[in-house]
């Protein structure tokens, strides 16, 4: 949730996600889940199926490899070797004018490998 807060300035977030589980986890009082990416101001995506309507909003992926597939993805949260990993891509944050708190500096990467 901290990660979502960090990337959004909206008081109430409208999020599009194709991850059903996420809808159960995230707090409903601050988030409105929308069914169409065009209605959302943030997308959180998993799996490799490309969501075509999500080209204009920042995306957080739930898999590292999706960073390459979504040019407008700004970061990723995923499990790596049983450990939670967070990555933000510096250039993409800048492109989307997203300014992260310093606490997230350690997660900001120059490159996608």
């Amino acid at each position: 949730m901290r990660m979502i807060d960090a990337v959004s300035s909206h008081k109430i977030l409208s999020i599009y996600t194709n991850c059903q589980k996420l809808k159960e986890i995230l707090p409903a009082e601050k988030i409105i889940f929308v069914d169409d990416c065009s209605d959302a101001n943030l997308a959180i995506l998993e799996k490799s199926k490309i969501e075509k309507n999500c080209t204009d909003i920042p995306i957080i992926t739930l898999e590292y490899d999706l960073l390459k597939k979504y040019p407008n993805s700004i970061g990723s949260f995923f499990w790596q070797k049983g450990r939670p990993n967070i990555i933000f891509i510096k250039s993409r944050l800048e492109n989307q004018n997203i300014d992260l708190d310093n606490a997230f500096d350690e997660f900001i990467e120059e490159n996608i490998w």
Partner: protein
Amino acid sequence: MVKNFHYWLYVIGIISILSMILYLYVSFSIKENEMKENVIFNKLETILIQHEKIENWLEEECKENQNIQECILMNSDKSKMLNTMLYMTINQDISYSFLVFKDENNRYRFLADGASEPARVMQKIDTDDKKVWDEAYSSEEGTLLSSNKQTDGLWLTYLSPFVENNQTYMMLVTDFSISLDNKIKNTISPIKEILLYILSITIVIFIIGIFQTIMYFIARKESFTDQLTGLNNRNYLRKVIDSRFPYDKYDIAIVDIDFFKKINDQYGHDIGDIVLKDISNIFKKIVGKDDFIFRYGGEEFLFLFQRNSSEKLLKELMYRVREHVININNQTIKFTISVGVNKNLHRCKHFTDMVKTADIALYNAKRSGRNKIVYYSEEIDDEKQSNFQTVQSAIDENRVFCEYQAIIDTSSDCVFKYETLVRIKDTNGTTLYPNSFLEIIKDTNIYTDLTKKVIDISISKFLDLNVHKFSINLGLQDFNNPEIVNYVLKVIEKYPKLIDLMSIEVLEYDKVDDEISCIAMVKLLQDKGLKIALDDFGSGYANFSTILSYSFDFIKIDGSIIRKVVEDDKAVKMVQSILSFAQAHNIIVICEFVYSQEVYEVLKSIGVEYMQGYYLSKPSQDLEWKLLK
């Protein structure tokens, strides 16, 4: 059966102990931590081998490169090769195995990954334990860290740095679980449970067994203990006197409380019990730990004293009893004991002989005034002992028999009844008469046994015929012997016909000790319907005074009077006066010792109806009576 039970108890006890040992061994020896350590040790061994393989491989592959990181990063084939090598180590326990290095920003990045879908080379990896990772990275030793990420096991991470020139260039990270531990636990758990069940069952059985054993020993103790005095009883005596008993080291003594019946009669049985308890307590205090004391009969005690101390202890015993005073209702009771001792047990073949000899000595102590210790002397009592053995063996070997002498009703010349007369055949076939053995065995258990035997023989002779009446002879003292009185009561209860057929002739050997109870017993038997005759009237204690005390149905005038009736008129007058006294009291008079026609005629002339003697009939084993006159 009891012995077997004990063996089973031992077996169950051993099973319990073995189960317990096994259970404790499984529970504690195969400790969880030790198992974990063993599993971890095996894993680490695998990891270290892997580490060495990679190191050797890199040494060979990157020997031309200054920087091994660059060697890997610059050559994707090498990276793929490393992936393969790491992949080989992955199994169900080793989840992840990957190589990382730390970049200039202190971030860990992948160099190689053994996963089937490996992470990308240079990709960053975050870790919760960054501090530990950093420490591991900067050290030369491997570091094991654990986390409880698995609920059913333990997830461990082993950080194994690759160091060259004191500088770590990468680190092998291996995540593994010790789920195998659970498998071992799962295997051991049923064994532990089975052992626990066995242990529980055997412990329960063992406890029940112990309880049963305790109950058995309590019951055994009770069966061996006289409830009143707390002394050992005859059951225990039978247990002690087996062939292993060291008779050569012991003396036997039989102790009898003098005039105990009087104490019972005068003060009541409760006081009698107190006396028995008090005396028993005195005995208990005196006997040594290797001596034995038994309550042998009512007021009889049997001692087995160790030979070297027996005389001193017996004197002490006499002294203590004499000095002991019981206060009952402001009355003091003092009493004495008579003791018969045999110091030559080794000369007796059987324990019964030992008791008999001590019994003889006790008898002599009583006869000679009581309140004394008499030692059995073999020389003096040799003949007595021989007679004892003769009678005892005759009883044991069925050499006791009876002859029957008819008492004639002279008014009809028919048999009025038969008198049963005991005889014994010795081992040579010679017939022994009561005058040769009866006096000797009197006051002994043999006498009681013989009396019972005579009763049995007479009953078997007359009961089925159901025609003739018969009489058996008892001493007046026998009415003070509960065993004999009870036996008579028992047979008349068993064979009610005996009440009409059988009568008892009372021979008054001596003045009885306890006349009150004697009179009561005679009356008891008369109340049951038995007829009682006084034998030998006119001699010894059998006189008018006795008739006053008892209500006899018959009196039998002694032969010493009858034999004189022919020549002595006083004898005739004496018989006449007895006859008139008897008629006045409805007592039937029998005259014995009718040995001649003259005697018969005289007696007949003065009105004697019932006569017995050789002139009329001789004693015979059969009942084919023939009038001889």
